[in-house]
């Protein structure tokens, strides 16, 4: 049994594709690439691929990780060449590494995500920085997470790895956010922006934000460096 761990992207062209649809576009690409991919047994076989972490609709990423299990081994450069030719716009294969044997599921080991969030600057920089400072210094911040089915209070500061930072570039605010991914949960950059606005009176148009994942780590290493 041969496996490949890949480092791939989700670009602006496919920003609005959901995680499930991202998975199925990768399945189709693997099929087009004619790689000898493994399938589960049974009445309704599915392709043996898995991802490190789901990405929300509207969020792009420079660091997605996908494992692919093959029925027979293929050389690394052949794997990369074939897959690259079959990828749609918006997905780039950055690296691929073959590995044998058992590895823990990436989903279970990733513990940190890094984001870069760009928003047009309205109002002045001081107000932005002050609100951000107040958030960074707060002991606890409660966010009400609403889904169509439920409504739950979440303390989100526990999921912050570091203080949020801001830079100002060409009339844009660029936030850097590092969030923890834990078995109990995590916090999304979009949620932090909402909290900025509603609880810390930050003058931002959070709907205009372009969120980009810049890194995903497990114990300080990228998942691909672990194999």
């Amino acid at each position, binding site marked *: 049994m041969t496996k490949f761990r890949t480092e791939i992207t989700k670009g602006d*062209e*496919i*920003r*609005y*594709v*959901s995680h499930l*649809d991202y998975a199925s*576009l990768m*399945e*189709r*690409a*693997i*099929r*087009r690439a*004619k790689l000898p991919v493994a*399938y589960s047994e049974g*009445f*309704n*076989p599915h392709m043996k691929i898995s991802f490190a972490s789901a990405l929300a*609709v*509207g969020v792009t990423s420079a660091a997605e990780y996908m494992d692919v299990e093959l029925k027979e081994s293929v050389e690394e450069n052949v794997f990369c060449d074939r897959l690259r030719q*079959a990828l*749609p*716009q*918006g997905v780039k294969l950055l690296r691929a590494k073959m590995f044998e044997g058992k590895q823990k599921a990436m989903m279970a080991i990733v513990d940190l995500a890094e984001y870069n969030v760009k928003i047009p600057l309205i109002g002045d920089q001081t107000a932005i920085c002050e609100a951000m400072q107040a958030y960074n210094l707060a002991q606890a911040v409660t966010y009400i997470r609403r889904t169509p089915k439920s409504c739950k209070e979440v303390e989100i500061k526990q999921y912050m790895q570091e203080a949020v930072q801001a830079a100002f570039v060409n009339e844009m605010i660029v936030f850097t956010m590092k969030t923890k991914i834990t078995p109990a949960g995590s916090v999304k950059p979009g949620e932090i922006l909402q909290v900025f606005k509603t609880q810390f009176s930050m003058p931002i*148009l959070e*709907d*205009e*934000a*372009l969120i980009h994942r810049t890194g995903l780590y497990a114990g300080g290493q990228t998942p691909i460096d672990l194999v």
Partner: protein
Amino acid sequence: MVKLDPAMIHAVNKPARYTGNEFNAVQKDHAQVQCTFALALPDVYEVGMSNLGLKILYEILNKREDTAAERVYAPWIDMEAKMRENKIPLYSLETFTPLSQFDFVGFSLQYEMIYTNILNMLDLANIPLFAVERKDTDPFIVGGGPCVYNTEPIAEFFDFFIIGEGEEIIVEVVECFIQWKKDGCVQGRQGLLKRLAVLDGIYVPSFYAVQYNNENLIESVLPICPEARPLVQKRVVKNMDEVTFLESPVVPYIDIVHDRIMLELFRGCTRGCRFCQAGISYRPVRERTPEKLRALAKQLVASTGYDEMALTSLSSADYSCLGEFVTDIMEDFKKEKLALSLPSLRIDSFSIELAHKLQQVRKSGLTFAPEAGTQRLRDVINKGVTEANLEQAVRSAFENGWNTVKLYFMMGLPTETDEDIIGIARLAQKVVDLYRQVTGKRGARVTVSVACFVPKPYTPFQWFSQNTQEEFARKQKLLKEHIRDRAIQFNYHDAHISYLEGAITRGDRRLSKVIYEAFKQGAKFDGWSELFRYDIWMKAFETCGIDPAFYNQRERSKNELLPWEHVTPGVNKEFLLREYHHALKEELTEDCRHGKCSACGVCPNLDVKVVDWGKRHD
């Protein structure tokens, strides 16, 4: 190029409907081509992207270096509101070019209930709605697809129509346009339309004058310029193996209605069901060879990466080489875990065995269309299916492990009596009982779906009066009362929608103003029951002083000149009349593919032949 603001796109449902960049989408530089063609389907992305005809035209046009074809669909109401609010014109998904900048905008006319969406899309694109108001800088608006056998109700909105199969004529249209441009766009828009009108299969409605008599009936429809032909016949592909089919269709990112490869086995169906317009308009049957189909399938799996393929046709189980072909194709794609599906099942055990072989997911159930509840009425509509056929098919399905069966019927068919309606309940009950007989247990699930019959142009029932809404409601109630078993679920159509469809489908040019008025009052997505506004439509008819009953509930005289007769799928009126009389006498007509020719006229009129490869070895 249109730019979408992230805040706007974040706020709408399923934003990937509007952002393009799909695999196999073709993006060309418009400065490098001679002709730009927007292919539009006036429904949401998921529906539009599932249309096979437009996929084929997209490939044919984009294969030409001098032409760029791009897609556009109707934005859902949330997106439309955002676009209007932000003054974003309707744009194409490939290059985000406003529709108004294309040379042609082609609309696929799939069903009458999306006509208001056409107007809404033109309006969103800032293109004048009426052909007569368009200037030289506006695109040519062209229609094609199944509704072209009566385009009169929308004639005023279109510059021209393509009648019949588009693979060959679309190329002629583009070449004609490029030549006209080279010649300095002589005589402006009219100049091109005159050049197009002489091509086989092109109908330019503004080149015909319609006269009415004092009974409000059509007196005459006559060409008003020498280029327009008195009779426009459909285009038809003679050899399905030679014509271009899909090679690299666009693969969507989001789940669409038919999210799989569509392999078209053949065109046409000559079973001769008398209510069916497609059965007439796609004649004659022309099959692809199994060898060609296997090669196409291979290419399509490689170019799309899909893991599912549907074997499509009007009646796929009628493909003459089906058994052998299915075995071969399953063998071809064993490694790829390709799932095959057969979307239209015939009511016989052969179909069930095939479905079983294809391992179609059992939970989805099997669908059969007996169409009518009694043998007498099935004979009237020439549905060559007996109760014994159905029994045998259903028995075989239950034996193979299915427990869910969907049965499709119509109500409001000619000569229908209450006995025929009650017959639907009786037949459904019989299916439930059969399950108990075959399996010895309860647990069958039978869904009965009953549509309200809409008589269509170019069918033997084109003269017949549609049932009133009250009559439909009464029959629905009657049927409900006779369905007693809880294993049977009864679904029926909204008679309001069928009533409107009935008025438009056999309408004439005077309906353009009603459709325009309904659009102005906010009608859109009329085929979506949650958005259908019956009140708006009835008010529009009233405002225009037109009674819909004149179109849907009037029994026409056999001598009446019908609004659609100057554009034809090639069938002889005498054949339709003959079939109407056979219907009243409950007489069956054979399938001309296997039995004797019923002299519908299509083959001689269009110089085309039935192509049936099953006979190759005989």
